[in-house]
């Protein structure tokens, strides 16, 4: 596990503790991209920082880009420390967050440590960027975020945002404005609103290898945003992806058949993270079967579902009487790693699964 990829290897590593996800992409020659952040439940460290350190990647020079696809709690935990540690990386977030209202909101709530961490993490990021004189980059549909032209034998690489669409940014700004507290209203913890209008879908091309990383973007009946806007866009980069980070934990409302038909190769390497909250547990059995009908190369960082924390008998008695359900937030933790040589064709992805990560085929459904 502690072996770094070769210079000529592309790597995609996906970490998922059951509530959250983090993706690392090695684009060759020790250049890395971090997309979102989650915490390793055992070490309490950000997965990206921990993993890169363990394989000897210098965080200050090796990480080129850190992308926060949105500010929900499950995609941003530990991103403050990650931005601090990767001192030369460019930070990218959704254009929907480029408002005075949202940053004021962050500054107001950031001073109040809460149980929901999204705001506090974002505040740490803003402070870190200010201190290190870095300017964030804002992502919107069809916008190139980072480019390597390929000098010194390195393969060319381009990272492009496919969302949020202009209309989604408009909706996000309205939504975020409503979050801003008014005077004499009660201070509460911040719970991110739904729907998520700001999710950043990422398209990565390294040489002739294409990756589609779907964030939490969902479908919308309004074709001006959501997956339909991406599929219909004639401005998105050309190419079909061989790797797909399945959006929104495999949920049906984030699955558009046209994405599989027009943006992905047949039987693409597909990977996702699970999600549990209240009576929602993703992916469902129906989701798993639907995804398996599209690819035989499906993986997940942990089986969907939750486990309970063992408690003393007296505590358990009271808890049982007072609750309808109770479960551990990060019930499982897994890491799925895929590596492929940049030059040899056909592309041969080498799959490695750590901790709770597993293939969809081996799940009992």
């Amino acid at each position, binding site marked *: 596990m502690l072996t770094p990829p070769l210079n000529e290897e592309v790597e995609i590593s996906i970490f998922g503790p059951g509530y959250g996800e983090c993706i690392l992409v090695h684009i060759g020659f020790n250049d890395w991209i971090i997309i979102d952040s989650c915490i390793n439940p055992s070490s309490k460290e950000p997965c990206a920082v921990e993993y890169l350190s363990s394989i000897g990647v210098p965080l200050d020079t090796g990480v080129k880009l850190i992308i926060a696809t949105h500010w929900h709690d499950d995609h941003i935990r530990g991103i403050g420390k990650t931005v601090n540690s990767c001192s030369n990386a460019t930070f990218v977030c959704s254009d929907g967050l480029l408002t005075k209202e949202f940053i004021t909101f962050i500054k107001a709530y950031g001073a109040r440590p809460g149980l929901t961490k999204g705001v506090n993490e974002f505040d740490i990021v803003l402070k870190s960027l200010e201190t290190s004189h870095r300017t964030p980059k804002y992502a919107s549909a069809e916008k190139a975020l980072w480019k390597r032209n390929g000098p010194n034998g390195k393969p060319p690489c381009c990272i492009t945002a496919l969302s949020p669409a202009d209309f989604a940014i408009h909706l996000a700004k309205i939504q975020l404005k409503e979050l801003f507290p008014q005077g004499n209203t009660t201070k509460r913890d911040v719970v991110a609103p739904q729907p998520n209008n700001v999710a950043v879908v990422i398209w990565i091309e390294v040489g002739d290898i294409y990756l589609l990383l779907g964030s939490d973007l969902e479908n919308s009946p309004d074709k001006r945003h959501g997956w339909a806007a991406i599929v219909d866009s004639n401005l998105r980069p050309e190419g079909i992806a061989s790797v797909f980070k399945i959006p929104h934990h495999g949920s049906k409302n984030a699955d558009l058949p046209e994405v599989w038909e027009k943006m992905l190769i047949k039987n693409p390497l597909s990977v996702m993270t699970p999600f549990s909250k209240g009576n929602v547990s993703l992916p469902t059995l129906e989701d798993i079967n639907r995804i398996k009908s599209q690819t035989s190369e499906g993986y997940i960082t942990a089986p969907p579902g939750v486990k309970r924390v063992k408690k003393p008998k007296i505590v358990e008695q009271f808890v049982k009487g007072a609750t309808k359900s109770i479960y551990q*937030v990060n019930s499982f933790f897994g890491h799925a790693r895929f590596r492929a040589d940049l030059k040899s064709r056909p592309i041969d992805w080498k799959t490695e699964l750590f901790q709770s990560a597993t293939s969809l085929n081996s799940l009992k459904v």
Partner: protein
Amino acid sequence: MQLARFKQYDQERIRIASDNIYLNDFEEEGEVAPSLYMDRKWKVITNPNVTSYGQVSFQECGFIAPQGEASVDSKINSTYIDIDDKSNLLQKEIPESPIVWYPFKYQRATLFTSFIKWRGVVLKIYKDCFLCRLVDQDGNSPDEEAEILLSEISDEDLQLIDIGAVFYWSIGYQTNPSGSRTRSSIIRFRRLPVWRSEELSEAQKKAEKTLIAFGIT
């Protein structure tokens, strides 16, 4: 000498934890005005004989005029203080970690010994329950999420349930002044302070500074 600690765990809330062996698990919570303590580390001490669920009030050392009984010691940096030694009280300077002496009441307390204490935040509200995140205050067990039945909440607290509302859930046993023990589960919602216009103006100023630093005007 009987001592106790107030432990800060965010800018607006403290916990009083006794260090007396017989009151080891006794805790009480109180709120302080954020205007006095925002962005500042501080410590508060008290005598452990404060009654359970008593109203707590605070004064910042030397900066705000004490209201009769409250006094402070700015020279002692320890969390602990002998409350009988008042020779250093009422200093004028504001120490880096001010210590506030809390007046105690000589009453026998109803003690609560907890097996587990969670801090919770409401994430979603359903017809008969609410979904919440629970964080073990002692850090002994991982974060959990639960759907707590509304029937478990007192009538007084029901009106406080809202998305983002914060509460505490303790499970343990109460020892009454008579010495009898009762198993108990207590859920109490925090009476959260309100946003003041000064705080919001301050946040706006900070945001403007950030935007200028990023070259966004």
